[in-house]
């Protein structure tokens, strides 16, 4: 159970880092993140179930398509509300999410879908622990994406420009950085991460057009826990949430699992609004 929680944490981290990246660079909360996850799940469903594509390659192959979708969404839609009060972008992206949901209801109906492949039920044993191959590969792909992204942010001009723009946008403009291009790229990467998470989740969970809602909330919780700046923080936040959820089953009804992330979010915001970074700081310098 603990192992499966850790495997799930990798997926949570992929999803949450997309949110954190977009918020970090643009200071907007991307509610359409859930819509992207849901669409990616349907695209994966079509490619895998109807067209027989390899389930583990599909998430990687569709991510670039969603990157382009994110860039276009930023350039032609979100860009219009940059600099406006936060409520504008919140409402706008909520609207985008609703549109995406309703398109899915029209096209796919509200039925629950699931992607079952030959890997779905396959497991292997290590020292008495049985591990689902499906979940292991999903974990590896998710974590690999974050490792690649970390290299990109640390070692390329565009990656550094993204970090610089997140820290001080005006200074970045003065350094000759085209911050609009940077924001488009960041939104694209965030969207690609959401699609990656969504299509990977489709391999594990059943979904419908409302898919992504509870995950979005978990994403917020993880980002608050882990802090917005660091990928490691987000990864730890994802781990804490995944473990809390897994362990809560011991005391709570499974139906109340989503309650855990809500409760954790509220508790963290009240007790230590700085997230785990604050906790670590306190432990080092009491």
């Amino acid at each position, binding site marked *: 159970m603990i192992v499966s929680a850790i495997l799930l944490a990798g997926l949570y981290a992929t999803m949450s880092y997309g949110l954190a990246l977009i918020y970090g660079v643009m200071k907007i909360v991307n509610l359409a993140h859930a819509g992207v996850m849901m669409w990616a799940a349907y695209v994966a469903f079509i490619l895998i179930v109807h067209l027989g594509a390899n389930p583990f390659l599909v998430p990687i192959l569709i991510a670039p398509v969603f990157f382009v979708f994110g860039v276009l969404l930023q350039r032609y839609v979100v860009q219009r509300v940059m600099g406006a009060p936060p409520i504008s972008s919140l409402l706008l992206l909520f609207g985008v999410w609703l549109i995406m949901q309703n398109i899915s209801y029209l096209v796919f109906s509200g039925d629950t879908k699931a992607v079952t492949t030959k890997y779905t039920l396959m497991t292997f044993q290590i020292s008495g622990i049985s591990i689902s191959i499906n979940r292991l590969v999903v974990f590896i792909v998710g974590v690999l994406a974050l490792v690649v992204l970390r290299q990109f942010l640390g070692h390329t001009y565009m990656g550094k420009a993204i970090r610089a723009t997140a820290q*001080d946008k005006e200074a970045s*403009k003065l350094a000759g950085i085209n911050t609009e291009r940077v924001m488009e790229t960041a939104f694209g990467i965030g969207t690609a991460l959401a699609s990656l998470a969504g299509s990977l989740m489709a391999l594990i969970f059943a979904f419908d057009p409302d898919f992504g809602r509870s995950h979005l909330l978990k994403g917020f919780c993880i980002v608050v826990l882990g802090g917005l700046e660091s990928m490691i923080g987000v990864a730890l936040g994802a781990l804490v949430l995944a473990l809390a959820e897994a362990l809560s089953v011991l005391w709570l009804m499974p139906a109340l699992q989503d309650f855990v992330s809500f409760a954790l979010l509220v508790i963290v915001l009240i007790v230590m609004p700085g997230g785990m970074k604050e906790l670590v700081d306190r432990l080092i310098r009491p």
Partner: protein
Amino acid sequence: MLDVKNIHVSYGDAQALWDVSLAVSRDEIITLVGSNGSGKSTTLKAISGLVPLSSGEIRFEKTRIDRLHAYRIVEMGIAHVPEGRRLWPGLSVRENLELGAYIRTARNVKKETMEWVFKLFPRLEERISQLAGTLSGGEQQMLAIGRGLLSKPKLLILDEPSLGLAPLLVDEVLETIQKINRQGVTILLIEQNVTRALSLSTRCYVLELGRIVLSGTGQDLLADERVKAAYLGL
């Protein structure tokens, strides 16, 4: 080189600049002086494209640059070191400098430019892997100027480079600015310390309440008792 003609700038309903005109020729050091809120910083931000004009025009080497994106203005050869340094605190000294050379023409000569900057500010080389946020105030100012230089500017704009520095460091920074100027970079600068500013610059403009009220060489202004009393607070 730089021609600012009759510009007006407003922030919402509040007008910040009225009919400001100034000219900078190659190899000059021009200072803007004036009290807080007189529009010095706004003038610089208008030049580097951070605030839009409501009327007037700005030309750099004969090309109109108002209405260009800020990053395009950097590409034309104007680097603006903003007030308060505005480094990226979570990036290392090296990364701050590297991103200073973000524009394409600067990337190709990054290595040489960086060596030049290290010759001007040897301290930066010692601190190369440190995060910019952990530097002292003086070092941060050096880094901010260094970052500006890495774009290989023809015109370097400096907004109060001596703000918050110890007197000894102020001299050091101002001397370095003169040295940079002698190596062929034109300078436009805001300096609070009026006596120092006037003695190091070729010409100087005095702003008051968003208008230019006086201009001339440093010696002229310093010699004018009326000017000293009314505008320079000496």
